[in-house]
């Protein structure tokens, strides 16, 4: 079975600081993708960043970057220059290429950015 684990239920960071959210996953598949989604109180799930497992280079998207360690099955999210609007639940998710694209989510990390 495939699993995604986020071991940090809550985190906080000062505005303009950097924070890293952790995620580990387990799968025996070779073809998969990893995502970080953000869910603010509005409930809308918003894609933050994605990583193809076959790519060694870590994905970056403006202030967001990942540290993808395939052998360790680790996929952490770094948010630089944190902004108040980054306050939200963050979910790590695994997508298996040969299973139609359904996402397997972790339990989430609630991030608070403090002024």
């Amino acid at each position, binding site marked *: 079975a495939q699993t*995604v684990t986020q071991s940090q239920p809550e985190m906080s960071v000062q505005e303009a600081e950097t924070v890293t959210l952790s995620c580990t996953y387990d799968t025996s598949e070779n073809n998969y*993708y990893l995502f970080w*989604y953000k869910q603010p109180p*509005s*409930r*809308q*799930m*918003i*894609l933050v960043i*994605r990583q*193809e497992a076959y790519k060694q280079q870590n994905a970056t998207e403006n202030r967001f970057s990942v540290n993808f360690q395939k052998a360790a099955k680790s996929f952490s999210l770094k948010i630089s220059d944190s902004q108040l609007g980054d306050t939200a639940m963050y*979910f790590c*998710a695994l*997508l298996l*290429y*040969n*299973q*139609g*694209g*359904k*996402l*397997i*989510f*972790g*339990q*989430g990390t609630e991030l608070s950015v403090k002024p």
Partner: protein
Amino acid sequence: GAGVSQTPSNKVTEKGKYVELRCDPISGHTALYWYRQSLGQGPEFLIYFQGTGAADDSGLPNDRFFAVRPEGSVSTLKIQRTERGDSAVYLCASSTGTSGFYTQYFGPGTRLTVL
């Protein structure tokens, strides 16, 4: 363009009643997904449509849950004889493409409360 829309935004019903939740995907998206998110948890996969057919319904918890997508666009999730344990946010997502890796765009969800 318009994103994924879901109606109603909130639904309160009594135990034993029947409910229908509607999802209107992004125009042209062939794949549609339903997820259920319980309080404090990550979303869990329910069912995936490719066009009009359910390609994977392995996440439906029991036969009280059923979903349709008769014309390959709008989908309806139907729950019979609702139970208090069905209370959750039901999320819908759509993506383009026929398989593998395509970004899923989520709707704002329907919060179902069963009294």
